[in-house]
């Protein structure tokens, strides 16, 4: 396949890179990434992946754009208030890069639909804001043998890790079970600094890009934490757990299931 002059210009800063080149850019154009959650994390991730020319991007979210989202969810704008987040995100992504395909899923991702959803993608980005969803995405990706990037943000802190099937510990190896509902505040109760989504969501996009082009080292076997107030990053080595309930030697979780949502997380 040949690139048009316009494509060469659009992706020139990528193609110039030895690690990307024509082959890497083609891989991006052929790549399929699913972003679960079009919020603080999903917004920057979706923007960078669209701009990078990731050919097929799926975006799932059951919410509509609210004024309180705009402090950090930079893919949505004030005139988008009231639109579904997936539609608003799609419009912005296509405005940046009309070459790509954006698949929208205006629904909650649940144990009923997640396996089918992830099966169509090469890499999954967890941009959700609650523990039940994070464990669900982890379990589904482990069971479907799909790589994914986990991330979480709250207040001035963020964290992320990357899972690659057969290689690295999964999210459940590290955190085992969700905390009891109400034990941990959501960002709606606790607050979050807007740029935190930009920092961590962009790192997730970077992991997806590196995975697709097959260059560099992924954040596997490690948890990266970022504290904005002390301006410190920590990279913590993580062991894989043989007795992990989903990726261990004798898994007890063999199909995805839903944890109960904390009352305040329900968005109906």
């Amino acid at each position: 396949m040949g690139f048009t002059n316009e494509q060469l210009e659009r992706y020139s800063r990528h193609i110039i890179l030895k690690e990307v080149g024509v082959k890497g850019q083609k891989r991006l154009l052929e790549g399929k990434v699913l972003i679960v959650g079009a919020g603080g994390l999903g917004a920057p991730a979706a923007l960078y992946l669209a701009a990078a020319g990731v050919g097929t991007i799926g975006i799932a979210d059951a919410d509509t754009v609210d004024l309180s989202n705009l402090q950090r969810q930079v893919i949505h704008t004030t005139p988008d208030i009231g639109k579904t987040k997936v539609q608003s995100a799609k419009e912005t992504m296509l405005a940046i890069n009309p070459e790509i395909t954006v698949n929208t899923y205006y629904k909650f991702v649940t144990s009923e639909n997640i396996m089918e959803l992830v099966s169509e993608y090469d890499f999954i980005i967890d941009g959700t804001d609650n523990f039940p969803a994070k464990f669900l995405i982890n379990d589904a990706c482990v069971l479907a043998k799909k790589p994914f990037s986990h991330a979480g943000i709250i207040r001035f802190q963020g964290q992320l890790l990357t899972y690659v099937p057969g290689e690295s510990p999964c999210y459940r190896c590290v955190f085992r079970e969700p905390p009891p509902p109400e034990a941990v505040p959501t960002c709606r109760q606790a607050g979050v600094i807007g740029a935190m989504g930009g920092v961590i969501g962009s790192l997730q996009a970077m992991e997806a890009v590196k995975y697709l082009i097959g260059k560099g080292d992924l954040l596997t076997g490690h948890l990266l934490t970022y504290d904005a107030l002390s301006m410190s990053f920590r990279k913590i080595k993580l062991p894989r757990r043989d007795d992990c309930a989903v990726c261990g030697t004798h898994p007890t979780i063999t199909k995805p299931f839903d944890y109960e949502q904390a009352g305040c997380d329900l968005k109906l």
Partner: protein
Amino acid sequence: MADFNIDETVDITDVVCPVTFVKAKVALEELEVGQILAIRLNDGEPVQNVPRSIKEEGHQVLKLTDNQDGTYNLLVRKTEE
């Protein structure tokens, strides 16, 4: 100077920096190691920068010819995958 067997040609006079180098790089990626690419490029910035960038990528610049019409012809042997 010996003549070379040209395997492929690319014209980068229709684009500007940095797409000049990008277009040449793309053409080189399509070739096998050892094959020769002829690049037609403009005088000025392209002729100053493109041969240098190609050398930095590890390829061998064989010959640069002034076409006397504001363009040059650059022969490059692909030496790196």
